[in-house]
Structure formats: structure tokens, C-alpha cells
């Protein structure tokens, strides 16, 4: 999230919003170009306008969901997210470098992949299984930190392995021939194909590895090569001559060139895309949702409305309880708070129903996660203070009680606006809420360290891939209570039955069966009110007027750059 943007900018924002409304939609002109056709979509330059940079562009160091927005243009992985649709199927995992999404052994502890024929790096050398193995091994090197932790936890010997730079290899990744890779895991992991979408599964040729400098010019296996890279802040990608659609059924790679520009203010990104002048007509928003100013114009400006895409990323914002702190050890108190919460006012605090929808389940409301609807403490849109008071009386607080709600100081979804909305709603139920703000990074450290964790605070969770496992396990698996920090099991729940159900669901390799299991577990956990789910975010993003085939992926909530055309 954009911590660096001065809070002060928000003031300018609000004023701009008013002015934008007053001016109507005069600037944007309709585009009269032919319909999108994949056969003739090639050409032109696509510009991506973003607030945040890409960071170090090394496949070992990147932390992406489903291969990311820009990385997936350069790094092909064993599997990938379904790029071909903006619908719910976008949350499905499909083969990329591999011929299928992986063949599991009986108990899902061994996964075998075969590489497609004819795959090449940007220099024309063939991609072999050893390159995939080496790419993964690099991600274990402490010299290249930052990637997701799963490989270390899942691969046999991963915990001790320190990367290939000191000469050792990781025997649990086998390459019996040039096109076969076999992974041996410590325990059953039905979600392995989802993990294989991460950039760590991109091939890296050992001969071209320059260690920490590799990020400056990583060797491409995808449709574009990096021709200029200013530390991930601005990047230029151009066609990879050795990539063709015949060996990649996921990416269309329409533009000849893609320019990534970051460091822009969110209001500026929206203004530029709305105005769509010059190169901005062929630009998309990289990470910025439309703001109140654009939102206000949409009703009266059909052309602008046609350039806004709505998308979803599986995430839930919630209130977290720490039951080791009184009175949150009392389930009746937690339930009373669940009844008292006014979700509509929380949603208004983060920008209204255009950007968020109320949540009563912890799992996001997408089938891929195993969404199973429930609402055990129905509070309606605006809270049920009477029911909350009743429960408080039962809990031994007939005259109400005083609690403290911790939140971050930045104007974000964990900030003061949400805290104030919760405070007001709980006040109606006789719960006096004292607010306890702390600066963002301190807030993160405090809430993720069990010894300093507050009793009641605002939190959020987004999964690394659209499945119930990475969504529920870090929050509710007792073996994932991290006492040294980085802990997200806020309830510090260590229930043997829950742990066993998580293990059982992790063994399932059939996505439909796994979805049922995760949905059931979520519903069981929901009854115990370990959290109060508040809302699921909705993404609304803008493109320039000459951009075609732009849709938001339901896997990671960003535009799929590999399918966009500017011609």
C-alpha cells in the first residue's frame, strides 16, 4: 500500500473530485476503432501507469500472486493463472511451460511435470528441466531474499538449503531428463499447482546468472524481454523474438512494446487516463483504482463508464480478536461485537459500495476459495445493537463495557476512518471504544508479534492464490503461530481438530473437493467468532480510450497485460 503518499494529498484529492464533477466529462473523446481481433492485434506501445514500482525484477525475489502483472510477461512458469478470461475461471490454474498442471502421486507428496517441446529463452537456447530446478534453487539463497515461504516449508530439505551459490543442489527437485521435473514434498500439498504459478518456478539459465545483478536483465522465457530497467521503477519491455503463440496459449502479446512508469500520484493516474491525451490513450492503470472524482463522473459520462473495468481479488478486511486479552476470551463478547458492527458505515469509510461489498464470511465470495455463505450473527446492513446488548448482559456486562481498538494511522483500509465507523456502531450497543492508533510499520510489527498483539484490532488478508488453503491456514492453523513475529493467527488458535481438518484438505488434489472442505471449515470457524469479517474489496480501474480487450483478472485483481491490445 502507498504509505509514502502524503496524507495531505488526500485534501487535494477531495477538491479535485469536486472540480472534476463540475467540469463533467468534456475531455475524453470517444474512440471509433475496430473491434478487438487477436489475429490483428499486434503493434503499438502500451503504457502502464502505476504508483508502486516493480522492485527487484529477479524471479527469485519477486513475491507475486499467479505470476504477477508485469513478471508474467517475462517469466513463464510451470503453471500459470488462466489468462484468457476476466470471469471466475480466471482463478483457475492452467499449464504454462508444463504440459499439464502436474501429476500428483497418490498422497500428493510427489508432483511430476513435463516441459512442452520447443520452449526457448530470449537468446534462443532451449529451456531444459535443469533451468527450472536452478531457478527454484536460487530462491533459497539468503542473498536473494523476499519470495514466498512455501517452497522452504514444502520441499524436502528446503528448511536447511541455502541456495546454489555455495555449490550445493536441492535433491528433492529431480530432473531425470531434459523435459521432466519431479518435486518431493515433506507433506501432502494438493495446492502445489497453484504454487507453481509463482515466478520462482521460472527457468533461469545457470550460465547467465549474475547473482544479485540478475534483476537488472533477467533472461526472458516469455513474450517480452527487458530492454531497460531502472530498478523496477520504470521498465521497457520489447518483443522476445524466440517466443511465439504456438508455444504459449495463454498470452497474446499484442503490443510491440510495453512501458512501465511508476511513482505517480493516484489522482494523476486517474486524470491522465480520463483525459487520454497522446500516449495516455494507450495506457492502463497498473495498481490504482478510480477515485471519488472519476466515480462521480461515471453516471453522466457513458464514454468514461465504458472504460472502467470491475474486478475482484480474493481478500477480506476484518476485525481481529486476541482471546488471550480479556474480555475477548469470552465468546459472548465477541458475538456481541459481531452483532453491533455496522458494515455499511465501514464501507462508506473506505469509499462506498462501488469499492467494497459487505462480508459475513471469512473466505472471499468467489467459488475458487470454496465460498460457503453463512451469517451467524446477522447484523443487517447497519448493525443490531439490541441483540448485542442482550448478549453483553448474558456475558455479565449489563451496563456495557469499555474496550480498546487498535488501528494504523495512515488513511488506508486499516486506518482511522474504519476505526471511527466501528467505534460509532459499537457505541450504540453500549460498548465504549477507545482508539489506539500507531504508525503503519509499528502497527504491523505489534499486531504480528504474539507477545505484543493488541486484544482487538483492524486487519486484512489476501491469499497468495485463489484457494481456501492459503486463505485459512495462516490465520487459523495452530502450527502457524509465529512467536518471533510475522504471525497472522491473531486468535492464536491451536485447535487439534482444526489443524487435522486443514491437513485433510491440503491432501485433496481435486479442486472441487478441496473447495468443499475449505468452505466447511470456514463455516465452522465462523461460529466461534474469532474475527468479524467487514468487507471484500472491489477493484474498479480505468484504461485509455484506445485500449482494447482490457479485463481484470479474478486471480489477482489487476489488468491482464498479456491480452491487452492498443491497436
Amino acid at each position, binding site marked *: 500500500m502507498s504509505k509514502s503518499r502524503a496524507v*495531505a494529498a488526500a485534501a487535494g484529492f477531495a477538491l479535485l473530485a469536486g472540480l*472534476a464533477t463540475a467540469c463533467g466529462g468534456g475531455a475524453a473523446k470517444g474512440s471509433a476503432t475496430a473491434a478487438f481481433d487477436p489475429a490483428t492485434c499486434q503493434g503499438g506501445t502500451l503504457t502502464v501507469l502505476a504508483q508502486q514500482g516493480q522492485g527487484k525484477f529477479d524471479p527469485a525475489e519477486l513475491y507475486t500472486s499467479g505470476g504477477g502483472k508485469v513478471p508474467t510477461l517475462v517469466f513463464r512458469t510451470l503453471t500459470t493463472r488462466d489468462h484468457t478470461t476476466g470471469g471466475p475461471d480466471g482463478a483457475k490454474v492452467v499449464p504454462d511451460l508444463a504440459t499439464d498442471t502436474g501429476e500428483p502421486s497418490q498422497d500428493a507428496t510427489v508432483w511430476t511435470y513435463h516441459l512442452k517441446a520447443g520452449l526457448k529463452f530470449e537468446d534462443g537456447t532451449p529451456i531444459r528441466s535443469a533451468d527450472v530446478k536452478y531457478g527454484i534453487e536460487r530462491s533459497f539463497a*539468503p542473498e536473494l*531474499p523476499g519470495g514466498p515461504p512455501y517452497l522452504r516449508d514444502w520441499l524436502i530439505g528446503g528448511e536447511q538449503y541455502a541456495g546454489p551459490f555455495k555449490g550445493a543442489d536441492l535433491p528433492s527437485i529431480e530432473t531425470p531428463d531434459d523435459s521432466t521435473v519431479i518435486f518431493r514434498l515433506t507433506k501432502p500439498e494438493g495446492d502445489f499447482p497453484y504454487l507453481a504459478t509463482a515466478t520462482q518456478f521460472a527457468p533461469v539459465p545457470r550460465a547467465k546468472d549474475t547473482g*544479485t545483478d540478475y534483476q537488472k536483465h533477467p533472461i526472458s522465457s516469455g513474450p517480452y524481454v527487458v530492454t531497460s530497467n531502472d*530498478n523496477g521503477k520504470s521498465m521497457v519491455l520489447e518483443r522476445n523474438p524466440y517466443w511465439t503463440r504456438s508455444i504459449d496459449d495463454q498470452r497474446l502479446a499484442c503490443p510491440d512494446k510495453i512501458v512501465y512508469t511508476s511513482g505517480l*500520484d493516484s489522482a494523476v493516474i486517474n486524470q491522465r487516463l480520463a483525459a487520454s*491525451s497522446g500516449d495516455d490513450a494507450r495506457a492502463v492503470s497498473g495498481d490504482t483504482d478510480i477515485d471519488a472524482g472519476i466515480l462521480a463522473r461515471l453516471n453522466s459520462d457513458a464514454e468514461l463508464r465504458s472504460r472502467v473495468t470491475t474486478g475482484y481479488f480474493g481478500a477480506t478486511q476484518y476485525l481481529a480478536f486476541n482471546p488471550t486479552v480479556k474480555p475477548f476470551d469470552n465468546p459472548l463478547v465477541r458475538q456481541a461485537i459481531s452483532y453491533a458492527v455496522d458494515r455499511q458505515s465501514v464501507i462508506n469509510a473506505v469509499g462506498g459500495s462501488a469499492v467494497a461489498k459487505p462480508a459475513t464470511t471469512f473466505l472471499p465470495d468467489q467459488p475458487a476459495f470454496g465460498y460457503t455463505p453463512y451469517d451467524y450473527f446477522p447484523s443487517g446492513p447497519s448493525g443490531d445493537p439490541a441483540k448485542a446488548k442482550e448478549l453483553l448482559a448474558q456475558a455479565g456486562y449489563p451496563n456495557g463495557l469499555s474496550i480498546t481498538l487498535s488501528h494504523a494511522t495512515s488513511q488506508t483500509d486499516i486506518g482511522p476512518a474504519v476505526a471511527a465507523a466501528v467505534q460509532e456502531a459499537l457505541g450504540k450497543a453500549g460498548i465504549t471504544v477507545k482508539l489506539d492508533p500507531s504508525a503503519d510499520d509499528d502497527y504491523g*510489527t505489534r499486531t504480528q508479534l504474539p507477545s505484543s498483539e493488541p486484544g482487538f484490532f483492524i486487519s486484512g488478508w489476501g491469499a497468495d492464490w485463489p484457494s481456501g488453503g492459503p486463505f485459512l491456514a495462516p490465520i487459523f492453523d495452530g502450527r502457524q503461530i509465529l512467536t518471533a*513475529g510475522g504471525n497472522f493467527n491473531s486468535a492464536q488458535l491451536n485447535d487439534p481438530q482444526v489443524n487435522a481438518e486443514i491437513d485433510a484438505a491440503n491432501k485433496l488434489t481435486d479442486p472441487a473437493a478441496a473447495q468443499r472442505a475449505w468452505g466447511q471449515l470456514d463455516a465452522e470457524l465462523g461460529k466461534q467468532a474469532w474475527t468479524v469479517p467487514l468487507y471484500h474489496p472491489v477493484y474498479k480501474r480505468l484504461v485509455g480510450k484506445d485500449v482494447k480487450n482490457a479485463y481484470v483478472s479474478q486471480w489477482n485483481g489487476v489488468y491482464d497485460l498479456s491480452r491487452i491490445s492498443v491497436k
Partner: protein
Amino acid sequence: MIRFLLRRAFSTLTVMLVLSVVVYLVFYAAPHDPARLVCGKGCDGVRLAVVRHKLGTDLPLWQQYWQFLHGLLAGRDFDAGTDVTHCSAPCFGYSFQTDQPVLGMITARLPLDASLAVGAAVVWLLLGIGAGVLAALRRGGIGERALTGVTLAGMAMPVFLVGLLLMMVCCGYLQWLPFPSYVPLTQDPLAWASNLALPWLSLALVMAAAYARMTRSALLETLAEDHIRTARAYGLGERRIVLGHALRGALTPVITLLAMDLGGLLGGAQLTESVFGFDGIGRLLVESVNTIDLPVVVGITLFAGFFIVIANAVADLLYALADPRVGLQ
């Protein structure tokens, strides 16, 4: 003159040293762990220790500081684990978070901040001094009151607001200018100027107010002095009196202000850079504070401090040139 320069050089060094010690102390005392930030989710003890060692934060404070000083004077080697990078003196440190030497990161951004500062200074001097002179000569009139109002409003408007409004009107609705993005002067002077026009103007609008007010009051004061009365008695023309005699004396405080402002801006103009999406020194500083990239923070603080100290010395020199009564003590 030489004594003046020597003394200034000595005090500059002292200020730099004190600055660097303070920055180190502040960051060491702060309860942050840059290694954990770099290392990512679920980073365990051994891995964390390796990252800490790579960042150099596993050493005691005095040792970290000593290494820094040593690098500054004699250069040093940085071991990234996979390769060793040599950083020759004056080595301001190495950012492992971006894998670049700090000095390079700063100097790469300097042309942008210099373009921004100098260009804006020209605009605000024209606006500020012009408005100040007019206001002094037309004292009490409607024009003067209007000017005072405008300059006050300019002073009260923060640059991020002026910048956003200018961009929305000039780039969004009227489309007179491109949405600013930095083009180096050496690459295309016209694009350089047209892209920087709005940043210059918005910075200048905010800054000009102070210059207008200072010019006005200093000019009024000078105009009331004896030598001006004498000049008038000799029958010199009003234009010559104001521009040739009074303004020269009135400009000395303006010079001091200008030197300080320029010095400050060369060390980064964070808000202006943010609004216009420029990757300048100010932005780099804020980002580095957020990611606890200590070498970069120390480097920029020293760099900015250096500019301010130098600007002060230059101001003193110019002072002496503008007003012969002031000597270089």
C-alpha cells in the same frame, strides 16, 4: 578571503560529521528491523541472520559508523553474497535493497532536482521581485492590495494542491501541456522545458509570495533612506533611483533567502516530486525511510546538509558583493 573559505570548509565538515552521527543514532535507536522487511514473509532465524549480516546491521553501532567513515575516506568493498562490489572513495555506502551505490543513486537524480530548483527559482524571482517592486511603488493602491492578496493566497496554497490543479486544467482539460515527466535538458531542451513548466510554476507560485513581500518591505525601507533622498535631490529619474540604487540595496535579504531555498531544494523537493511523479532526491529519501534503507538516508541527509551549508557560504559571498559595507569576516 582565503581565511573565510578555510573557516567555512572546516565548519562544513563539522556540520556533516554531526549530521551523520545524528542520523545513525536516530536510526539505530528506532525500533525497526530492515532485515525483516527485506527478508519477507515467514523469514526464519538463520535466514534473517544472513540478511542482517549482508545489510551490516548485525554489527554494533560504532562499528557500523566507523565502516561508513572509512568508506567515505578510503572506499570499501561490499559483499552481496554472490559477488563483491567495490565502492571507491568518497563512498557514501551501498544500498543492498536496490543493489546500487548510494552516491550514484543521488547523482543520477541531481539533474532533475537541479532543473526543478533553478527553473523554479527563475520564475519565482521574476514573479516575486516584480510583484514586490510594483507593490512598493504603488503603495496603498488597489493594485497593491490585490497583489498582496494574491501573494498571500499563493503562500497559503500547498504545492501539491497547486500542482494537481494546474495539471488538471492545463494537461487534463485544456491539453496545452503534456502531463509532466522528466526529460533531460541534454536530450531535448524543448521537451525539458515544456515538461517542467508546470512544476516550475507551481513551486514558484508557492515561493514567490515570500519574495514579493520581502522585496516590498526592503525596497520601502531603502527608499526612505538618506542616499535615495540625495539622489532624488540631484534630479535622477525615478526609474534609475529604484532600479539602479534602491533595488540593489533591497536585494541583499532576497539573496540570502534565495540561497537557502535553492540549497534546500537541491536536497530534494519531496512534495513537488510526488505530485508530478518525478523520481527525485526527495522521493528517494521518503522511500528509503519507509524501507529503512539506512545508507541512502544517511547519504541524502549529508548531501542535503552539504548543499545548505554551501548555499549559506555562497549567500555570504554574494552579500558582500551586493553590499560593499558587508565584509567577509
